[in-house]
């Protein structure tokens, strides 16, 4: 190995840096989340008598469709001058076509968020153990930790999901657990997917945390020990608090990554956002509407995550410590 492994902390921030001075950005996000939350409450919490039916969008499609038609008609009669009108007509027709799929996509988005948050949250404690073992452990522990991270990071996530879902009899075991699939608890396939994301995310988070821990000056632990703290206490009270702050950019990367790659769960039958888009598109042949809409959903989620991580970074910032923003 070369003297200095390319550490992920050296990586350029690849999250989406949104120009948050732009009011329309905030407005767009607010509308998105507002609608999403209302939809979820409607579908999951409200009793059937009060709620809007699960397959019916809040918004009527007909007005958009008819507006599109009339605009297109006007555009055609105007000839070349009417080109911008035609463009607007196309947009309106796009919206009209997309509206009926909103409810299903909202439900898919819920699962996407569950998969992502669960994957990262469950992977975190494993990652801390792995990184501490790697930085402070003896030869055996270091080797074990290294093997785990190298193996997981060296193989595709999709292959890992396939191993878990098709290769191992996990589905048979998980299915039998009481409560699976009812109410808020995700179904079998989703749980297997969460397991896969946890294992995967743990490896990547371990790398981010490891390089963050190594960025903490060695003198910090020395000073901690010189006032009588044990090595474990020194790591816990002095090194980790600093190291975890250095790891925030890495977490932002991981959060954005998992939001996008949760789409792979569709290949093991999880009905998340991408699955919903694909199945509707295959039924209605509205490939353009559905895939563009799916893309927009993902971008909204990614931008929201970046904004959130930005807030976290600002709140936890200590002068002179890290701060790559």
């Amino acid at each position, binding site marked *: *190995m*070369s003297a200095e492994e*390319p*550490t*992920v902390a*050296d*990586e*350029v*921030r*690849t999250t*989406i840096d949104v120009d948050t001075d732009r009011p329309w950005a905030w407005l767009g996000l607010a509308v998105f989340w507002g609608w999403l939350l209302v939809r979820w409450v409607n579908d999951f919490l409200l009793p059937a008598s009060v709620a809007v039916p699960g397959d019916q969008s809040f918004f009527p499609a007909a007005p958009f469709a008819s507006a599109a038609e009339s605009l297109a008609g006007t555009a055609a009669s105007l000839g070349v001058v009417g080109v911008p009108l035609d463009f607007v007509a196309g947009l309106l027709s796009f919206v009209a076509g997309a509206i009926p799929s909103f409810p299903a996509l909202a439900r898919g988005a819920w699962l996407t968020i569950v998969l992502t948050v669960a994957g990262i949250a469950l992977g975190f404690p494993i990652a801390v153990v792995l990184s501490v073992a790697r930085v402070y452990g003896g030869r055996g522990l270091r080797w074990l930790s290294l093997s785990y991270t*190298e*193996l997981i*990071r*060296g*193989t*595709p*996530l*999709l*292959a*890992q999901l*396939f*191993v878990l879902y*098709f*290769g*191992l*009899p996990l589905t048979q075991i998980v299915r039998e657990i009481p409560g699976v699939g009812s109410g808020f608890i995700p179904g079998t396939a989703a749980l297997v997917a969460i397991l896969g994301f946890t294992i995967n995310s743990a490896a990547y988070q371990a790398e981010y945390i490891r390089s963050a821990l190594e960025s903490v000056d060695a003198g910090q632990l020395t000073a901690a020990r010189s006032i009588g703290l044990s090595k474990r206490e020194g790591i816990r009270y002095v090194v980790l608090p600093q190291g975890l702050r250095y790891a925030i950019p890495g977490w932002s990367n991981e959060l*954005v990554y998992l939001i*996008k*790659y949760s*789409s*792979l769960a*569709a*290949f093991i039958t999880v009905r998340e956002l*991408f699955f919903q*888009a*694909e199945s509707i*598109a295959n039924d209605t042949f509205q*490939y*353009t509407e559905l*895939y*563009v809409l*799916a*893309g927009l959903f*993902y*971008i909204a989620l*990614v*931008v929201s995550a970046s904004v959130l991580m930005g807030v976290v970074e600002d709140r936890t910032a200590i002068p002179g410590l890290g701060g790559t923003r």
Partner: protein
Amino acid sequence: MLQAGDWAFVLDNLDYLLIGVGVTGTLTLAALAVGFLLGFPAGALEVYGDGLLARVVSTSGVLLRGTPIVVIMLVLFFVVSISQSAFVTAAVGLGLRSAAYQSQIFRGALQSVDEGQLEAARAIGMSRFEAIRHVVVPQALRRSMPGFQNEFTIVLKDTSIAFAIGLAELLTRGYDLFTQSGRSTAVLEVFLVISAIYFVLTFTTNRGLDWLADYYAIPSGENR
């Protein structure tokens, strides 16, 4: 769960899988090449350019980095329909995604070269373009190596997502192997072998790129 007969089955069909390695490898290199050819100018534009073109480039980058690769591939295949060939579509899709990320790698590297280097170059009479070309870029390219190594591995693994458009690369072949042959008990063996092959691929390319980086590295002294 793991049976000797199933391993034998995989071994018998190893040549079928290894052709998949060829497809995976070629796809990776093609995508990285597209990514570099588009990404490097994009990164330079973001650093040194201003005006409409720079903003268009920067926004496209944001969109490409915020969309899952599987959606990009399906849009290119079904919506834009740039090609009947799954290979070309996958190469373009992966290439565009890679370009969006490589532009950030190069942007960071270009920005990390000290201002003073550019000033010194201009102070001896070089034009801005010459100064960037002969002094900043050579240093920036070297600083991009760690990011580029990382990107290489990511693209290599993402080729597996061409599964979604039916490209017969490594993972798809594995999937076909156990579904079509009716040998469904061999599932685990097949995917373990495939994972092992991917691991060997990523491991060797990482070491190879490490060696390359050392070869082109600028010597750093101890008496600074």
